Structures are given as structure tokens and as C-alpha cells.
């Protein structure tokens, strides 16, 4: 081992240490050296908020050390996550419990408290509630829509007993359009005593429910029965009467008018050869079929578009005898606005879907349509939050069909004599809360305001309009009613076993194509009860008697804070506020002195008072702290 370059390496090292003599020593004594507190604070203090906690014991389940002990007594008040997600606010856990106890009639009463169309929703609702169901955390969400359908199929009309109609108030309300929004508003306004007349342009009331949704999803007699219920309350429906101007209605002495026209006009594709024979527009196609008019369809049918309307048109075409139906959609399956179950049902029935393809030209040649399409590719995200498809140059290809149905979208068709401001997509602009338009006494709701949307959203709009019209006409605007008997002795869920969704039986493929019979058969009795029992009763679990965290075992990993669905648990990260006295620090600069706005910190000796150490709580949820009335003080004296 040679000792080469004697001393030079050592000298260089000495130079480095010497240089440090004159540099500012790095120490945690200087607070500003300390960086800011991270947003996800995880300190030594666990704060639990009693109001927000729903007692769903997810935190106890998620704690790896098993330190959280929670006892719930079940007299809760806060609505369950699924009820919050439902636009109309149906109390889902409550009617699930009625079904579990084998009382479907009471269940329908609970549903009818919020929506006048329980069986329609049971068949066609897009069920936003199932996305929020807490059971999904364990295995799979509850099938709420089918439970609603089961309840309505075994209903004995118990809800009529408590359904009251107020005495006539002498006010007259005109509703244009008998879709879900219009009829819901009519129903509630009639119950409040106003005399309501509904004007419907088509021969049959029901709007999109009647003409938009084909029979195999919602059979017509179910709809007619529910509309009968609405008529019993005193709603007068005039069909085949198209209303052209609002002023004439006002002259006839109506005090308030509700425009619920819906979105019945199909959007034109705007490509060459769109008017050639054999090219149909989906809304009119579905309307003719559902009204029973004779519609001839060739053996090869193409449907352009990816929404529910496109799927319905395709499956209706199949049932009308089309041999081969293909759907062309310019984006991919992920971006399809249609309901996933509908898309699967269509694929099961043999519908072929070409993704990333868009029509560019239609050439009509001796009774046959040459559809020229172009391949697309997905580019940047556009305003609707989906990626904008761009055509690929030179990738045209042609296919021949007998009919082409355009289902690329719908928009309301508003006669200009209404004199109302028209917003984007030809919709009426209304105040989002009260749904009142700019003209006095005129209200608008449903698809005409929001553009094509789901049935449940239209019903929710209908309820909102009923409230605002009643207020406009001088009432209090209360449409809440209690139809169901009060619930006795409901206990929260103790232990839940693993259980999956039931398989809903459907018609076989051959039966489906032969007729317009309903595809989905309902649930049997014991299957429905089993499914209802899977509900975690989130609304009942509140009223926490005992919530204790054994600080000794807790390792402050923060998993419970993340697991809590209602953000009722969080941790404060506190620096011990160190008291610096001038003399104590040799290198103390002026700014070291404790000042309020500067954030003191550091690992200096914490000044320990008699009680607990003074701690600066640097919580970004500070505003939340003052709301926490009873502070569950779990802090052990830190550092004693």
C-alpha cells in the first residue's frame, strides 16, 4: 500500500472543514429554515367529529392495529350516501328494510313520498345511487333499481291511504308537455289544490317515457297505470293539442305556465345525401314505432351515434326484422354515453359496433344506401371532457345498408313565439334553483332546460318547479308528505357476511328478437329479500355511543382518516411551540423572537406548562375546528 501524494488529500479535506467555520451553522433552531406543514397532516392528535360520523365502522375495520373501538346505537338522522346521490332524494335504505321485512306495499309508499313514477324508475332509471353505495367497498353495490321494480310489482296500493289532496285554491296552472317533468309537477300541484291542465302535442301522454323508450324496456301499460294515478288526483291532460304561443294561454286566465317540452328534435348529421330515402332520424323512428305506426326496415340497418337513443333504435330495428344492425360511433366504448348494461344487452343481441368511425357521405343507388365513413383517432380532451375525435386522412371506407338511422343527439324544438332566451343546444335558460325563466310566471324544467338527460333528473326538476310555482301562487311550497307508516325498532347492522348481487333472469335471445316483450324479468320474492338484507343501513348507523382510540397502540398511520367516507376523522400536526428567550440562544437573531405570525417550530426544549403543552394547531381544516363542539380530547400529555 503506497502512501502516494503524501498529505494533499488530507489538506484538501482540512480546507473543506475550515470553510465551514465561516458558514452559517445549519440547525433547526431557526424556524424559517423549517418548511411548511404538509397538507396531509399526521401528528400526535386524533380529532373525531361526532356530527359527521355515521358510525359505519369503516375506520375500525381499516385500522391495522385494531385500536379503534366504536359502538353505535342506531338512532341516526343524517341521510345515507345513496339517498344523497339520488336527484329526487328517495330514502333508499328505508324502503330496502321494508322489502327485507317482506312488506312491499310500505316500500312503495316510501318511494311514492318522493317520486310519482316508482315502477317507471324501477324499469329504466340510470341509478346514480348505486355508484355511491357503501356496500361496493365490501363486495358489490346493492341493485336498487330492481328492488324498486320488485316493490311496485307487489304493490297493494297502501300508499293511497295517507295520500291527501288539498282543497281547491282556485289557481289555474298550465303545463306544456306531459313528460316525466311535466306530469310530476302536475301531480304535486294538483295535490296542493291548484287546477292543472296538461297540453300534450302527441296523441298519448308520457313524453319520452312513452315515445322515447321502447316497449322491451318499459311496457306501455305500466306507464298508463301510473299516469292514471296522476289523473285521479285531478290532473286534466289534453292530448293532440299543440300550444303555439304562451300569451294566448295567459289570456285564457292561467296564473302560471310550466314549459316541459322535452328534447324531441333529432340533430341532423349535416352530411351530403342526408335526405335521401331510407335515411331516418332516431327520435321520429322511435316515436312512430312506439305509437304503433307502420315502419318498414330493410335487412341491413346502420345506426349513427353512441347514446341510449342509438342503442334503442338498433334493438328496435332488430325487433322489426332487420337481419344485421351495425352501430357506428366516432369514439371508443369507454366514452359511450349509453348505459353500460344497455350496450352489453345490445351486443348480446348481435348488434355489431364499429368504434372510431364517422359517416362522411351517403350515396343512394337503386334502393341501396352506400355509406362512406372515415376512420377517426382521439385527440385532445374537448369541452365535454371527452377526447375530441379527429379524422385520419385517406382512411375512407364504404359499407352498403338498406336504412341509416341518425341518433347523434336531441335538442328541444321551441317555437320562437315563446319569446324566451335560448341557451346552448337550443335549451331554455332558467334560474337553476327555482327554474323560473325571465318572463313573469313562466317556469321551465326537464330536458328543455338541461338538454337530453335521465328520467330521474326530469322528475327532480318537476318537483322543484312544483315547489316554486306553489310559492309563486302564494303557497308555502311544501310538497313533502308521509305515506309510509313510521318504522319501529330498526337496529343497525352488526355483522355482515359476504354476499354478491343476484343474477337477474332475462328472456332468451330468440324470445327477445321475436317480440317487444320486456327483456328483463323481475326478481323472485326470496331473491329480493336476500338482496334487500345486503343493505348496510347506512342511514340507521348513526348515534355513536362510544368512540375510543387507544393512543398507546395507535401508530398514526392515517389509514382510518382516509377510510372514513364522511371525513369525520382527522389528525392535527402540531409543532411544540418552543419559547425562545433572548439569552438562551447565542446565535439568536432578532427574528428568532417568538412572533405570532411567524410559525415557530423546531425540536428545541418544549416549554411544558402545568396542563398540556401549548401547541400551535396548523390544520388546514381550522375552520372546521370551531364547529367541533365537543372536542374529543385524545391527547396524552406529549413529551411528559
Amino acid at each position, binding site marked *: 500500500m503506497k502512501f*502516494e501524494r503524501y*498529505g494533499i*488529500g488530507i489538506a484538501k479535506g482540512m480546507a473543506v*472543514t475550515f470553510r465551514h467555520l465561516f458558514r452559517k451553522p445549519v440547525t433547526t433552531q431557526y424556524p424559517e429554515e423549517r418548511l411548511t406543514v*404538509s397538507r*396531509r397532516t399526521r401528528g400526535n392528535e386524533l380529532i373525531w367529529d361526532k356530527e359527521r360520523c355515521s358510525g359505519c365502522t369503516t375506520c375500525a375495520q381499516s385500522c391495522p392495529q385494531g385500536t379503534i373501538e366504536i359502538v353505535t346505537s342506531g338512532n341516526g338522522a343524517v341521510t345515507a350516501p345513496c339517498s344523497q346521490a339520488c336527484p329526487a332524494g328517495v330514502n333508499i335504505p328505508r324502503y330496502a328494510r321494508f322489502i327485507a321485512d317482506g312488506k312491499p306495499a310500505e316500500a312503495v309508499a316510501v318511494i311514492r313520498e318522493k317520486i310519482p313514477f316508482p315502477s317507471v324508475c324501477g324499469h329504466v332509471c340510470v341509478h346514480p345511487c348505486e355508484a355511491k353505495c357503501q356496500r361496493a367497498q365490501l363486495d358489490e353495490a346493492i341493485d336498487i333499481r330492481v328492488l324498486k321494480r320488485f316493490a311496485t310489482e307487489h304493490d297493494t296500493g297502501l300508499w293511497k291511504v295517507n295520500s291527501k289532496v288539498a282543497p281547491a285554491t282556485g289557481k289555474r296552472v298550465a303545463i306544456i308537455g306531459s313528460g316525466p317533468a311535466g306530469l310530476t309537477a302536475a301531480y304535486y300541484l294538483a295535490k296542493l289544490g291548484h287546477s292543472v291542465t296538461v297540453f300534450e302535442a302527441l296523441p298519448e301522454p308520457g313524453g319520452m317515457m312513452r315515445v322515447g323508450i321502447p316497449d322491451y324496456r318499459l311496457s306501455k301499460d305500466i306507464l298508463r297505470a301510473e299516469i292514471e294515478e296522476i289523473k285521479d288526483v285531478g290532473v286534466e291532460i289534453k292530448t293532440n293539442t299543440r300550444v303555439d304561443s304562451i300569451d294566448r294561454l295567459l289570456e285564457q286566465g292561467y296564473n302560471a305556465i310550466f314549459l316541459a317540452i322535452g328534447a324531441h328534435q333529432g340533430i341532423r348529421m349535416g352530411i351530403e345525401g342526408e335526405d335521401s330515402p331510407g335515411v331516418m332520424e332516431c327520435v321520429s323512428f322511435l316515436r312512430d314505432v312506439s305509437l304503433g305506426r307502420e315502419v318498414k326496415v330493410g335487412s341491413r340497418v346502420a345506426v349513427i351515434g353512441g347514446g341510449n337513443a342509438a342503442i334503442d333504435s338498433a334493438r328496435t330495428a332488430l325487433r322489426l326484422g332487420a337481419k344485421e344492425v351495425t352501430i357506428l360511433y366516432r369514439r371508443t366504448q369507454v366514452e359511450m354515453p349509453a348505459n353500460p348494461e344497455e350496450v352489453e344487452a345490445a351486443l348480446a343481441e348481435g348488434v355489431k359496433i364499429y368504434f372510431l368511425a364517422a359517416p362522411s357521405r351517403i350515396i343512394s343507388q337503386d334502393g341501396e344506401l352506400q355509406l362512406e365513413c372515415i376512420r377517426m383517432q382521439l385527440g385532445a380532451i374537448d369541452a365535454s371532457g371527452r377526447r375530441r375525435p379527429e379524422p385520419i386522412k385517406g382512411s375512407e371506407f364504404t359499407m352498403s345498408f338498406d336504412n341509416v338511422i341518425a341518433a347523434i343527439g336531441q335538442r328541444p324544438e321551441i317555437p320562437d313565439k315563446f319569446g324566451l332566451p335560448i341557451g346552448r343546444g337550443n335549451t331554455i335558460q332558467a334560474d337553476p334553483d327555482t327554474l323560473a325563466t325571465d318572463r313573469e310566471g313562466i317556469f321551465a324544467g326537464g330536458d328543455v332546460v338541461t338538454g337530453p338527460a335521465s328520467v330521474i333528473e326530469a322528475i327532480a326538476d318537476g318537483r322543484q318547479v312544483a315547489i316554486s310555482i306553489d310559492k309563486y301562487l302564494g303557497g308555502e311550497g311544501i310538497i313533502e308528505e308521509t305515506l309510509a307508516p313510521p318504522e319501529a325498532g330498526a337496529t343497525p347492522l352488526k355483522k355482515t357476511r359476504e354476499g354478491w348481487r343476484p343474477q337477474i333472469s332475462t328472456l332468451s335471445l330468440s324470445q327477445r328478437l321475436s317480440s317487444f316483450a320486456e327483456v328483463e324479468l323481475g326478481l323472485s320474492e326470496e331473491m329480493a329479500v336476500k338482496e334487500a338484507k345486503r343493505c348496510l343501513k347506512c342511514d340507521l348507523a348513526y348515534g355513536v355511543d362510544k368512540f375510543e382510540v387507544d393512543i398507546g397502540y395507535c401508530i398514526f398511520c392515517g*389509514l382510518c382518516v382516509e377510510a372514513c367516507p364522511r371525513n369525520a376523522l382527522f389528525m392535527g400536526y402540531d409543532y411544540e411551540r418552543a419559547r425562545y428567550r433572548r439569552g438562551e440562544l447565542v446565535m439568536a437573531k432578532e427574528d428568532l423572537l417568538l412572533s405570532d405570525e411567524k410559525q415557530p417550530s423546531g425540536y428545541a426544549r418544549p416549554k411544558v406548562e402545568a396542563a398540556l403543552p401549548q401547541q400551535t394547531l396548523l390544520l388546514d381544516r381550522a375552520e372546521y375546528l370551531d364547529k367541533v363542539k365537543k372536542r374529543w380530547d385524545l391527547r396524552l400529555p406529549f413529551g411528559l
Partner: protein
Amino acid sequence: MAIKTEPFVLNLGPVHPSTHGVFRMRTTLDGEVVVDMEPVFGYLHRGIEKLAEERTYTGVIPLTDRLDYLASMSNTLAYVLAVEKLAGITVPERAEYLRVIMAELQRIASHLIAVGAFLNDCGAFMTPILYMIREREKILDLFDMVCGQRLTYNYMRVGGVSHDIPDEFLPALDKFVNRMPGFIDEYDQLLKKNEILLVRAKGVGILPKEMAINISAGGPVLRGSGVKWDIRKADPYSVYDRFEFDIPTGTVGDCYDRYRVRIEEMRQSVRIIKQAMEQLPSGAVKSEVPHLIRPPVGEAYAHIEAPKGELGFYLVSDNSIAPYRCAIRAPSLINLTALCDMVKGWKVADAIATFGSIDICMGEVDR
């Protein structure tokens, strides 16, 4: 004439200033020369693999922080990759990049401690380790900003990371990344060519190349012996294939080479972090994963290049919410296999220096 000396047993035992935790070397000494050395483990055995079988897949994450407590971010990364492979969960882009940044920061922090401890064992009285701890303090502040803790981070989740980084994280990281190479040069000037360190470290505790492969060593120990093997390059996981960085290797495989390899790796990590910061996309940081993950029946093995070597998690699942078996391949334990041969014949001081250069962490050895 050889003086007749009688060897005696000295316990460089569990409580010893330079055994990096509770590791005991039963050395039989003949005067100063180590005649035989037998490592004794188990002082920090907590049975983490048994504990993991009782916890849900998310509940095991805090356990992984306590494996190699000097690099807990990488342990969680290995475990989380294994679960994602098992359950087939995809991770959003931003989360992948955040994981790479955190893992590389953790590699720098772990190497700082490793090199500092090694130099301290060679006798430089606390100066190098204090300079390096000053840098490590900055990294810990960055971690504190991101996940609120300084040692057991519990930051990564199955399907991404638990929280997005606060806005003041990137500027602070940028400042750190720009100043770090300067600090590394300062360490080099302090001790790289120091004659006494050269004498104490060069040619001491040699691990030849074939033996390194034979004892399946990993990380700087393997690369120090001249084997060019790095999981990030050989079997790139996460998004490591999008960065260019090179793998430093030593020549002889002595303490000095391992020390130099660690210093170079710190520079490469800074390079990776710079590239990762430029390509950091925006978007979600965690994909939709139910709280009680229930992967299908089967098994999966995922391994990463942890600072100390190849850290692997072998998960067997029986479609319940807890792993059926969670086996951990601990690089530190396997790197110690050859410690006895590397130390026999050298002095006590060299035994301590060689042990320091292998850089083990008892939390991972004893599990």
C-alpha cells in the same frame, strides 16, 4: 518463532456504537486479528410476515415502513407493486412519476446514511456524517411536506399514492436538486482522496466478482465487485424505462469501491429526479380501488432496486381480504452471507469498516 497466543471471543455485540442496530458479531480474536466471525441475528425479529397475514392488503402498508426504516418509501413501493400485479390494478401516470421521485429521494437519503456511517466507522469523527445528515434533513423535510411524517411515511397506496404533493413541494425539490451535486462534490473533496481513508478502505474486505454472484448479493455490494446488475435497468418496473441514467460499478470489490459506487449512485438519482420532474404529468394520483381489496386466487412476485439491493415481495392470495402469505426478500440479510469470509484475517478495525461498507439495516434483516 510465533508467539503462542490464545484467541479469545469478543462480542461486537447487539449494543455497539457501530453495528447499525442490534446486530451481533461473535468474533474470536487472536490479539487484533479476527480469526473467526459468526453473525447472530434475531434481536429485532418482530415476525412481520406473520403479522401481514392478519391484516388487510391496505393494513399491511404501515408494516412495510418498519422493514428497512432508513428507506421505508421503497419498501412500500415494492409491496404496492406486488399487490397491483396480483390484483391487476393500473396506476395513473402522475402517481407513477411521484413514486419514482420519492423512491429516488429515498435512495439518496439512504445512501447518505450508509456513506456517513461507513466513514464514521473508519474514524472520521462525526464530520462527514453530520454534513450528510444536513442534506438528509432537507429530504426529510420534503417527505414531511408530502406525507406529514419523517420516518414511517405510509405514503404509497395500492393503485397510486395517498395524497397529491402540496404546491410548495416542487420549488423546494427543485432547489434541493440543483444544490445536491454541489454538496456531493464537497463530500468528495472532504474525503475522496484522503490518504488515510485510502489506506483504511482500499483493498480491505474484498468481495470477488464470482463470490458476489454466488452469494446473490445485491445493490452497491454487488456493483462494487464489478457486476453491472441493476433491477431498474435489467427489469424496469414502474416508469423507470423512460429515464436515462447509468449504473456505476467498482473494480476490485473492496470497501472503497462500494463507497464510490454509493456516491456515484447519488448523482444518478439526482439526474433521474430532474428528468422525472420535467415529465411530471397532471391528473389523478390514485385509481379507484375499493378499500378492502380482494385479489383473485394466485401469486405474484414484484421486486425493485431498493438502496440496499433487490427488495422483493412474494404475495400469495386466496381471494380473501388478507394476503395468504407475504414473503419478503430482504437484500441486507443476503448481503451479509459473505461477511465472515470478507472479515477473516483482518483486524478488528477492518471488520467494523467492512461491515459498515456493506450497509445493512437490521429492521430488514430480522423482519
